[in-house]
């Protein structure tokens, strides 16, 4: 006999302030099948779970309804609690009376009535819940990290150090990412390359790490523990195993039209190039769009000068298929395209640059060997203006609404770079707010003002005019004094907003990870599961989840590694038992379900079935492979005879909920 227990949580005052929990309990007690109902201040607490366990024992409960927060929050908790006291975890239902009731409604009467309705629907469903047993699946002990910036490298190293194999896939010709482009890092002002390049070497030399550079993920199949991934190794046109990395080809290449990506467009590079001196692997790539050999058929200089005969113009893309247990996304970030910021002079003068370009101009490995110059004249600037929040905290639609988080700190850093090296150069920073939370961050920014004499002006830059002679004229407002300011800076640095990598959306589609409106990956829970995607087996590392600085990126990369290691260390995973089930007596063998299944989990099998009339019959019926089925339920609707059903979300159960809610 069914004995249902209904447990109504107050969630402190979160629920109890808006929902009359006592009335919900009273309403539950009147429902046939409900043997016990009670409320408690915090049902998820130890005492709350003890109350559930005690009631199960005392009243012989075999089904549980918890009226509480979202099942996305504590369904796991209550299922585990049920299992401990001998109730099948899949005979637990959650009525979400916090997010869907208490938090969206102000009127207590309305909220209470809705809570009762939701509770009744949950009771209606729980009555039909059948006990389910999860199956088991194996785990491939290898992880894939997509993205080879600091986040990806750190995650890969941590996983590899724990003894598991890791592959890094990086679309650029070298690992290193954006951090490799930076000059120094805040708040310590230590050289970016000096902390990053040893990590790159560690990753390259680690026996457990394989690196696929100039490669992209093409296709992802399978599920947690058993992903199968196709990696496209793009043709470098250079045989990596023979190339010694001497770089002669890159110096002799006659094509000099392509902008260097690494130097943020401040320098031209050859069609055959190594992105930067410390690149890993140190193997050049031919950019076929700019290569004379590929475009005109004439040239072939690189092939002639190569001492090892490593150039191969006939190389083709190669597809590598590999199995992984876990996938870590570390696709990083990009900077906002400033094409809509013509009012700040973007695109009208070479002396209006982004912060990333400034990094290259001050970097000893950059196009000017670290000498800060105005790109148009090559002369050292005497007056530099830095503009914060270009496209950040922007509600006008041309930028992003969020705060890019790192700009306030790097603006202070840039101002310090300049004042340190060129004390006679005047630096002014325009800002809306200075936001410097973080260890040693506020002190750092104050140092820029107090010790380095950087002018900070709270205000907006309205307009930048570029005169015929190339000089710049800037109009701004000082919000503190209310004055209009006119300035003639030699160099303007725009702190462009951070955006998600344009590839993030494509990869999200491949691994079915959730993505937000700005293109950042969504975490499973912002507080409790910040480095996991809602999709099982997919973890998030670094900026791909949202703007963050290097210390935060590295901590998150480590956290993602720990989560991945936790998964890889298991020999077996429990699978979701809410899979499709075929009623073979009714199945006509039409195979409609086979066609709609995105996982190829259903096949038609010739077998002896017992019909509804009790006769034995030999025919083809649909058989579900529970290891492959992910429980989407597409087949259940496609089935014309109603033979397919989904465990845990059966037709009957959903109908019962509909009936309860429409009563």
């Amino acid at each position, binding site marked *: 006999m069914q004995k249902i227990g209904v447990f109504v949580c107050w969630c402190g005052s979160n629920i109890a302030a808006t929902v009359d929990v006592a009335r919900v309990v009273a309403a539950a007690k009147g429902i046939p099948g409900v043997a016990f109902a009670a409320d408690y201040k915090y049902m998820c607490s130890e005492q709350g779970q003890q109350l559930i366990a005690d009631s199960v024992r005392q009243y012989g409960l075999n089904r549980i309804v918890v009226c509480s927060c*979202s*099942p*996305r929050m504590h369904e796991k908790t209550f299922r585990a609690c049920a299992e401990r006291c001998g109730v099948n975890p899949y005979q637990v239902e959650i009525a*979400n009376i*916090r*997010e*869907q*009731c208490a*938090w*969206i*409604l*102000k*009127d207590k009467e*309305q*909220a209470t*009535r*809705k809570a009762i*309705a*939701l509770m009744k*629907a949950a009771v209606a469903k729980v009555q039909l819940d059948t006990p389910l047993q999860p199956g088991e699946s194996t785990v491939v002990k290898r992880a894939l990290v997509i993205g080879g910036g600091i986040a990806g490298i750190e995650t890969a190293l941590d996983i590899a150090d724990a003894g598991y194999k890791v592959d890094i896939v990086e679309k650029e010709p070298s690992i290193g990412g954006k951090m490799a482009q930076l000059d120094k890092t805040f708040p310590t002002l230590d050289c970016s390359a000096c902390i990053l390049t040893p990590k790159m070497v560690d990753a390259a030399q680690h026996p457990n790490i394989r690196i696929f550079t100039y490669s992209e993920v093409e296709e992802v199949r399978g599920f947690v523990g058993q992903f199968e991934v196709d990696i496209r190794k793009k043709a470098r046109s250079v045989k990596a195993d023979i190339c010694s990395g001497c770089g002669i080809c890159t110096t002799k290449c006659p094509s000099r039209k392509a902008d260097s990506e690494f130097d943020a467009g401040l320098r031209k590079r050859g069609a055959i190039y190594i992105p930067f001196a410390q690149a890993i692997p140190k193997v050049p790539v031919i950019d076929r769009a700019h290569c004379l050999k590929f475009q005109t058929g004439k040239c072939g200089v690189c092939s002639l000068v190569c001492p090892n005969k490593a150039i191969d113009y006939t190389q083709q893309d190669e597809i590598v298929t590999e199995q992984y247990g876990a996938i870590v996304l570390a696709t990083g970030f990009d900077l906002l395209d400033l094409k809509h910021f013509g009012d700040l002079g973007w695109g009208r003068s070479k002396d209006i640059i982004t912060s990333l370009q400034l990094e290259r101009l001050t970097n000893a490995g950059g196009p000017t060997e670290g000498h800060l110059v105005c790109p148009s004249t090559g002369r050292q600037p005497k007056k530099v203006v830095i503009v914060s929040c270009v496209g950040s905290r922007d509600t006008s639609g041309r930028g992003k609404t969020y705060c890019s988080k790192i700009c306030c700190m790097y603006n202070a850093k840039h101002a310090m770079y300049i004042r340190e090296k060129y004390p006679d150069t005047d630096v002014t920073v325009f800002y809306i707010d200075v936001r410097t939370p973080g260890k040693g961050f506020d002190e750092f920014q104050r140092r820029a003002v107090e010790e380095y004499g950087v002018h900070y002006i709270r205000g907006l830059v309205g307009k930048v005019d570029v005169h015929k002679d190339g000089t710049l004229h800037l109009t701004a407002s000082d919000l503190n004094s209310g004055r209009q300011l006119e300035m003639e800076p030699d160099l303007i640095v725009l702190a462009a907003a951070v955006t998600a990598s344009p590839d993030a959306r494509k990869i*999200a*589609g491949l691994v*079915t990870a*959730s*993505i*937000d*409106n700005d293109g950042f990956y*969504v975490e499973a829970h912002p507080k409790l599961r910040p480095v996991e995607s*809602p*999709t099982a087996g997919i973890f998030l590392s670094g900026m791909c989840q949202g703007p963050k600085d290097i210390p935060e990126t590295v901590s998150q990369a480590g956290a993602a590694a720990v989560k991945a290691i936790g998964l890889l260390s298991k020999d077996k995973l429990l699978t979701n038992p*809410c899979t499709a089930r075929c009623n073979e007596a009714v199945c006509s063998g039409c195979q409609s379900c086979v066609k*709609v299944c*995105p996982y190829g989990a259903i096949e038609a099998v010739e077998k002896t079935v017992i019909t509804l009339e009790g006769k034995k019959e030999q025919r083809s019926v649909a058989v579900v492979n529970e290891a492959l089925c*992910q*429980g*989407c*339920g*597409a087949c*259940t*609707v*496609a089935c014309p005879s109603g033979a397919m059903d*989904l465990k845990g*979300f059966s*037709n009957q159960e*959903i*109908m019962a*909920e*509909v*009936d309860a*809610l*429409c*009563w």
Partner: protein
Amino acid sequence: MLVNEDGKTAAPETKSFEPKIVAFCCNWCSYAGADGAGTARKHYPANVKIIKVPCSGRVNPLFVLRAFQKGADGVILCGCHPGDCHYMTGNYYTRRRLTLLMSMLDYLGVAKDRLRVAWVSASEGARFAEVMNDFTAHIASLGENVKLRDMRCRK
């Protein structure tokens, strides 16, 4: 056979009319979006009651008809944006199935704008509330639905 019980169109609207609205929400996007609406304390009417399904593709058109039959005034189905389905293709099936269902609703005696399909992602809490406010207002303006009755059960 499904027919209107009283043969009339919508009942006259009264002040106390509280539409019954069933919202089917997929687990991955829209249910999370509804949680987001709650977390951000975005108000939407109590009339909307959510049923969680793993994927919008799990929603059998029969569930929608059952809701109308049992007295729902409006049914809304929410899933991930096209291209973002957790199960890759579920919402494409939903889109086609529900388009077909909508084209038959008038024939069945239910105004077709009593059924709506909306894509709400996990990060669109505010949009979830907006969609629900808009749909509820629309259903309220349509008035009470006529119940579909199965005539075979009538004595």
